[in-house]
């Protein structure tokens, strides 16, 4: 079992050589065809016909030159794409580094570190794909770097043991060297894929304009397009042919590393039932994922054709193998998956508070009771102690929404000091569904950086109270009636960070939850329950779609 990088290289170098030869061939064939076609086009234009011209009348010297140039070009291409492949591919997939303050990301980082210890201490980087799809992938390049990526959706849906099994599977690919081949192939081919798309667009665009001279150029472009198409297809075939066997083997290595076949089976079961996309990626990247992101009816079949045209083996077959190792069957698997699901917490109903008068603590003495207007002359701060008239409970001003409203109206001077825009209590760091946010302990509002809202929408740790659901339905009713034009909002809150006025707007016209955003600091303020309402709306829309 090769664990060291040197051994992996030794074992797989013949396959790598094959890809390199293919690359040289492409450049050679492409360049030769270019030359031959240009030659004939020029001849045709000079003589007016192609009669009496022999086939391939060009001297062999030209072909030798072409070959050398092709070799050089392929070499450059190879060096660039292989040594830069990981950052390049990660950028295409829009993968991001894990956020150390986010509890889910931290757990993923920990799991990847554990698996790299199990592999003998080889350093493996970790990335996250910001999509709610369920999938995982691995990348490796010749400089010794390796990376494992997991989607946000998968982080939400799997528990720790299942996540470890999936990471173990990806690590299995890395140490077996499959990832190295596939990353090398994919990045070498990605240039052709890009070129192919570009040529396709050029062809489509040129159909509208035709001319004598244009005819020759179009022919050229067409030839190149076809050549790159064939090359893409061939490399695709090759990588698919090897990749089915690689998946079985990676499953076996995962079990060997993590010693938990049942968790891997559970994870595969969950992934195959959910949306397994990888985000917005080229077709050629699909071999790198644990379950094929592009669903294909052939995937679930066996046989020569299926082996040839689908990148991943049928999930049912993989499950059968894993379950036999775990001494279980499909029924116990489904039961154990259900068992492991954590139910959303139910939130108890909170009763409405009636409008009272207040007794206010002034220098240690209770004064009052005062109505709201009467507090005008007093020095009320967010932490002044008050007592509702008729109740024995002592609380602070910040606990009482009516008094706080008063304070805000009067314009307290402590804006911009990271205080709550509503009730001016200092904001505290907290975790909401694992995401680091700043929340106001007094009025329940949340300050969230704009780049983190996606994680909250994908994760579903939070339970929803009946009140939230009721308000969400009201918001939905507004959305359904349709919003004509841009509504005029009264911007009244100021940003806790920079003290500028925040822009009040609907989160979106489909989800018209009113929020305040500071575009200078890229943070959004959600009042109490607004974040839950938004989450509830989006998630019920998603589950309505899934039926």
């Amino acid at each position, binding site marked *: 079992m090769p664990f060291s990088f040197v051994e992996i290289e030794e074992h797989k170098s013949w396959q790598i050589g094959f890809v390199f030869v293919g690359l040289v061939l492409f450049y050679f064939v492409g360049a030769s065809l270019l030359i031959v076609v240009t030659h004939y086009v020029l001849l045709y234009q000079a003589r007016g016909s192609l009669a009496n011209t022999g086939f391939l009348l060009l001297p062999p010297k030209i072909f030798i030159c072409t070959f050398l140039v092709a070799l050089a070009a392929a070499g450059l291409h190879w060096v660039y794409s292989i040594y830069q492949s990981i950052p390049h591919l990660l950028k295409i997939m829009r993968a991001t580094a894990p956020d150390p303050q986010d*509890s889910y990301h931290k757990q993923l980082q920990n799991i990847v570190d554990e*698996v790299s210890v199990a592999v003998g*201490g080889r350093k493996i980087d970790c990335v996250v794909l910001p999509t709610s799809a369920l999938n995982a992938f691995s990348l490796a390049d010749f400089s010794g770097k390796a990376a494992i990526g997991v989607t946000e959706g998968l982080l939400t849906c799997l528990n720790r043991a299942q996540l470890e099994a999936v990471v173990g599977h990806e690590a299995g690919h890395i140490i077996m060297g499959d990832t190295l081949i596939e990353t090398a192939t994919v990045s070498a081919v990605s240039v052709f894929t890009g070129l192919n798309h570009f040529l396709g667009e050029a062809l489509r665009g040129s159909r509208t304009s035709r001319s004598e001279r244009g005819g020759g150029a179009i022919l050229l472009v067409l030839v190149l397009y076809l050549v790159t198409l064939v090359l893409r297809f061939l490399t695709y075939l090759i990588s698919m042919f090897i990749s089915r066997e690689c998946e079985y083997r990676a499953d076996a290595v995962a079990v060997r590393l993590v010693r938990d076949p049942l968790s891997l089976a559970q994870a595969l079961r969950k992934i195959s039932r959910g949306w397994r996309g990888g985000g917005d990626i080229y077709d050629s990247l699909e071999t790198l994922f644990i379950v094929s992101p592009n669903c294909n009816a052939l995937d679930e079949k066996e046989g020569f054709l299926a082996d040839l045209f689908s990148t991943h083996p049928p999930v049912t077959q993989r499950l059968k193998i894993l379950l036999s190792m775990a001494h279980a069957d499909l029924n116990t698997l489904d039961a154990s998956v259900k068992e492991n699901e954590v139910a959303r917490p139910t939130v108890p109903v909170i009763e409405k508070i009636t409008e009272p008068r207040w007794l206010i603590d002034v220098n240690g003495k209770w004064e009052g009771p005062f109505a709201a207007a009467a507090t005008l002359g007093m020095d009320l701060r967010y932490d002044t102690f008050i007592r509702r008239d008729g109740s024995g409970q002592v609380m602070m001003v910040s606990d009482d929404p009516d008094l706080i409203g008063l304070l805000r109206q009067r314009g307290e001077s402590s804006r911009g000091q990271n205080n709550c825009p509503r009730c001016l209590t200092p904001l505290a760091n907290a975790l909401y569904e694992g995401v680091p946010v700043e929340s106001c302990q007094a009025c329940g509002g949340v300050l969230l950086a704009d780049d983190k809202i996606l994680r909250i929408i994908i994760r579903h740790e939070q339970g929803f109270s009946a009140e939230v659901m009721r308000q969400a339905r009201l918001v939905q009713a507004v959305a359904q009636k349709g919003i004509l034009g841009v509504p005029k909002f009264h911007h009244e809150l100021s940003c806790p960070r920079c003290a500028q006025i925040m822009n009040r707007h609907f989160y979106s016209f489909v989800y018209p939850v009113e929020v305040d955003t500071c575009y200078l600091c890229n943070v959004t303020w959600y009042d109490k329950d607004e974040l839950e309402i938004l989450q509830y709306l989006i998630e019920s829309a998603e589950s309505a779609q899934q039926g």
Partner: protein
Amino acid sequence: MMTGLLLVILVILLVAAPIAIYNQLVVLRQRVKNGFSQIDVQLKRRHDLIPNLVETAKGYMAHERGTLDEVIKARNMAIGAQGVAGQAQAENMLSGALKSLFAVVENYPNLKADTQMLALQEELTNTENKISFARQYYNDEVMNYNTQVTVFPANLMAGSFGFNKEEFFQAETPEDRAAPKVQF
């Protein structure tokens, strides 16, 4: 002429084979040593995390001094342990103390929900898993090495080159064997 050639080939083989075997055994033994020191790295990490854990728990678990003190004592003993067997025993006792601490934590829902405690628990789970993976890797390497040392024809030469079988890392007590892997 033929016999001369055959003789030369035979001599070359007789010289090359031991060299190849020796080199392979050297590589495998180095891997075993590497695996062993990996375990030490993870153990040290565990030693460093434990005081933090106890401090966080202390605030909530005022009358569980007995359990907390046991954990600190086991940790200090583990740091001071000498020799492979002594170390292994001390580490196992520390694992036992941690298990009983987490069993008690279950009774304190406020402590369980405390975010710092949750983060610490995640770190500890992480460390315990790393320790067991490091041990697993070490055992795998020892298995490879022991196999290579005892197969034919290497076993003829291994003793004289100074390569002997290494010890596996094993569970010390029967109760360790019986207990399943703990998920905190």
